[in-house]
């Protein structure tokens, strides 16, 4: 990798392998998409919880402190909405801040996976139309 982030992006966008490699790469996302569509169906049918739990003492303490200081919670929430280009208004709560933070983190770290998740949601939403 170079010291120039723009050049790294150009490289990522223009560096192609052969078709067999690329087809194998596409299959990986296809499997992920299908899997997510299945779980979305399970959730719809009540066979799976919609909650996600994490064990993390530091984050738990931060969230508790933010709830004690709502102006900071609001600042976090609004910053996350802005980063994610969400037009939502109103006072963000603890749950929304966590949800958006997870989403933003995953999108930054693994944009292809998140794009696949978006397609899976789209597939699920348009199923049966």
């Amino acid at each position: 990798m170079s010291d120039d982030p723009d050049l790294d992006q150009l490289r990522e966008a223009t560096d192609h392998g052969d078709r067999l490699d690329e087809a194998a790469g596409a299959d990986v996302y296809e499997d992920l998409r299908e899997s997510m569509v299945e779980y979305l169906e399970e959730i719809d049918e009540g066979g799976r919880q919609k909650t996600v739990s994490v064990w993390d003492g530091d984050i738990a303490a931060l969230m508790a402190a933010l709830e004690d200081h709502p102006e900071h919670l609001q600042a976090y929430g609004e910053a996350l909405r802005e980063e994610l280009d969400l037009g939502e208004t109103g006072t963000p709560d603890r749950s929304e801040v966590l949800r958006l933070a997870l989403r933003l983190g995953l999108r930054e770290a693994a944009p292809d996976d998140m794009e696949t998740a978006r397609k899976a949601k789209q597939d699920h939403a348009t199923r049966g139309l």
Partner: protein
Amino acid sequence: MSETLRAATFLDKGGTGKTTTVAHLGVALGELGHDVLLIDLAGKQGDLGKHLGVFDEYQDQIANDEAWPNIATVFDDQWPTIAEKLGDKATADLILSTDEGVDLIPAHPGLDSLDAELGNIDDARERYTRLEAFLDEYVDPLGYDVVLIDLPGLTNNVSYNGLWAAHSVIAPVEMGPFEAEQADALRRDLDKIREAFDVTIDLSLVLPNKVDTRTKLAEEYLEAFREEYPEAMAPEYVPYSQDIRNATEQGHTAFAHPDPSATASVAQAAYLDAAEVLVERLQGG
């Protein structure tokens, strides 16, 4: 020479000796004193690099993730931005020196998906002129006398780019009925390109190779080709030579053979003659 001459080997048929022809004509041009660059667009297998002994070196670069940018990158619409950021080394890094006096831009696995990517460009002229733009802007300033391009043995977006960029075709042919048909088809293709896009692509050299004149049929085909392509025929045919096959397997051309056989010597002379008339024809002589 002040202007870089270009030609591409093409025939819509596999196994006619295109890559062997580019390697040997390239080295022959070098022997005649020209500064030569070869470009391998013939497919990810990188056969031209094998002929010239640089295949392993480039495979190592690919394995070590050091082969970017590469020949496939120059077709990307982002190439001018990449070249601007990397400066002079953008194009210089694409080129390998070989022990046989010619330089090479080797094939890269990215060529495999290139045809489909070019197919996504809606405007036909834009789709077929990416290589020409690269040669005009980035290769011609390097001052090579001749650029020879090895194309895939089929008609696709990559081979059209090569034909369009070179404006000049070398058709290596074997002496058989299918080659005659393919050479006719090539001429029809060139006419079609001329009509559709107002671009003239000349058939500059028809080079019979792997000719076994012990068979009467080969002599007859040779004569038929001479009648059909009097202006494009090479002065001599290249005879079948086991030395050429062996040389290829050992990663060099027949010119590097220390003690060439009689047929290899005849082949060398035929390539040198062909190289000489090719330059004359490319110069409009």
